[in-house]
């Protein structure tokens, strides 16, 4: 009895340890590999990797001025990362956050200047419009996916340039503000999200982002929908068999996901730029994919992953100014992380279902 119990106990103890550390292990490994490969690339470009990384860290994290820029750049990534994570968890590939964010931003930008309201109404109106704008844009891949089984990846990726061209048409042609810049007119003061940093455009939008993460956490763990979405992601056939309305849930996931991506646009327009600028995004929607992967689709994880990438992006601007290294170094690092995580992702999945072939 006791001779059998001891190894069992030991096994359980090591299982507990593994359960505690495994979620953090693979992201850590991925980050280390990315840093190593990045160092080689920096050396290829003829720079000192240690110096480059030191600047990257300093530029992203050291001192409130740098930190506030990092937080400013974190905010949109929380939204887009959350949007992508929500859809990935449900087994749907919404990688069109970029386009959804643009449409959300456009909606907020138009209502921000075209409507006059007191601030307590104006800001919610613009934020809601941004959510709907993003959701609307996500409805296209969603409907095609659910009713016609068209691969949503390709449609999502196609919707991104379409959004860019459409918003470009509106902001550079149809509703262009007078002046040399391709932008809409400035939004009214009543629509501006208050800024609280002298050194950056860090604004109240970050609280909306954190609240959104909280709401999604609650949805995932404590609501019927969240439960259904998880099952949908793990085995859609089983979900359907078990009486979960797969089509309607898939639509809902896409719309909510697109809406959250749209909120990123609201934050950018209402908090950072105070107007819709053509082509304002450096690719927050795509970085959101990397954020979601690093966070393993956890909404709380998204906050930390977004901060890591926000700080990297902030550091990369300093990097580009101080050295000859392009800020795109950071994009390379981010997607190396995604690539490595993708590999481990499936490893653990495989290990769980080694077939005892009979």
């Amino acid at each position, binding site marked *: 009895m006791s001779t059998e119990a001891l190894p069992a106990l030991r096994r359980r103890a090591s299982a507990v340890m593994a359960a505690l550390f495994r979620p953090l292990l693979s992201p850590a490994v991925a980050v280390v590999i990315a840093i190593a490969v990045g160092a080689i*690339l920096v050396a*290829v*470009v*003829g*720079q000192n990797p240690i110096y480059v990384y030191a600047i990257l860290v300093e530029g992203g994290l050291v001192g409130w001025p740098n930190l506030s820029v990092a937080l400013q750049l974190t905010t949109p990534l929380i939204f887009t990362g959350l949007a992508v994570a929500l859809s990935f968890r449900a087994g749907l*590939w919404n*990688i069109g956050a970029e386009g959804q964010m643009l449409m959300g931003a456009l909606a907020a930008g138009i209502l921000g200047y075209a409507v006059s309201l007191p601030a307590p109404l104006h800001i919610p109106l613009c934020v809601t419009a941004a959510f709907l704008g993003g959701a609307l844009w996500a409805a*296209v891949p969603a409907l*095609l996916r*659910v*009713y*016609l*089984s*068209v*691969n949503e*990846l*390709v*449609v999502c*990726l*196609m*919707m991104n*340039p*379409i959004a860019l*061209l*459409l918003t*470009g*048409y509106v902001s*550079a*042609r149809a509703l262009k503000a007078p002046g040399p810049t391709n932008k809409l007119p400035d939004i009214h003061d009543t629509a501006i999200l208050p800024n609280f940093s002298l050194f950056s455009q860090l604004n109240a939008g970050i609280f909306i982002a954190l609240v959104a993460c909280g709401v999604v956490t609650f949805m995932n763990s404590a609501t019927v929908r969240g439960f259904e979405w998880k099952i949908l992601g793990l085995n*859609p*056939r089983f979900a*359907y068999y078990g009486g979960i309305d*797969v*089509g309607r849930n*898939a639509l809902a996931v896409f719309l909510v996901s697109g809406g959250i991506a749209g909120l990123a646009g609201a934050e950018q327009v209402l908090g950072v730029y105070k107007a819709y600028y053509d082509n304002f995004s450096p690719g927050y929607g*795509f970085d959101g*994919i*990397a954020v979601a*992967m690093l966070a393993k689709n956890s909404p709380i994880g998204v906050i930390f992953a977004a901060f890591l990438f926000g700080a990297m992006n902030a550091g990369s601007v300093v990097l580009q100014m101080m050295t*000859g*290294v*392009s800020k*795109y*170094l*950071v*994009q*390379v690092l*981010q*997607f*190396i992380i*995604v*690539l490595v995580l*993708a*590999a481990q*992702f*499936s*490893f653990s999945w*495989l290990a769980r279902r080694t077939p005892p072939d009979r």
Partner: protein
Amino acid sequence: MDSDLAYSAIRISTPLIYAALGGLLTYQAGILNIALDGFMIVAAFAAIAVAYATESLTLGVIGGCISAIVLAALLAVFNLRLRANIFIAGIAVTFLAYGLTALLLKGVLGQEGVFSSDRIPTFPPLRIPVIADLPIVGPPLSGHTLLVYLAYLLVPVVAFFLYRTRWGLRVRVVGEAEDAASAAGINIFAIKFETMLLSGLFCGLAGAYLSLGYVSLFAKQMTNERGLIALAAIFFAKGNPYWTAAVALLFGTATALSVRLPEVTGLAPQLLELIPYVVTLLTLVAVGVRKTRTRSRHGAWRFEL
């Protein structure tokens, strides 16, 4: 319509046809390769960088192809050996390629967004002896560069290998019934790896054509989703090389129209640039409708990936 339009349609379709040929080989082997754009962009960059350094077009094209093949091998290793999801890995490789080329553009060529140089030689237009003198079809068909003709000549070559050879049979069986292939002792990994490398080769030609033939410059993300458009063509043609090329040519014609229409109509360029994307999207809708029709006949559950 007029021969100028036809001429530019043939020219504009060239990179689409290369990319589509690359994509359809993996498609036939059962891999949906969404990293075609990534392969193309590294090739476009490497081609122009090598051509700039050596002043040789041949070396430029070879350099472009090699770089795309290397990237394809990376994706293949992650997907086939490390079991990474092809979609995630494909997206990662694509954005990695965008970032890497932008990084190297600044780091190696010292440019911020666009690079061009008059040190880079250009492809001479080829006059095709008999065809050039034909009425109507002569002018659009003659006077293209070598890489354009190569793209169209590769279509029957790919079809030949796919449908006539042992390799092609194995590729198609791997794509349709992997277990049948492995039970017959076929090395599935090798077959998939080979199609992926060939995907790299064809996208390499596409990328090299983009930066050395189509225009003579490199710009960030200059592939403009051509890989996705090529994928739509492949879906629509169910991977048949001839039909895929025909659909790609159709997309190219739509693009050629969008390039020329501003002069004619005075419409905003942004709206006209939408044409190829919207046409592609409509094609995907058509694919979906077709698929749904065949499926609803036997009414099996419809939420399949």
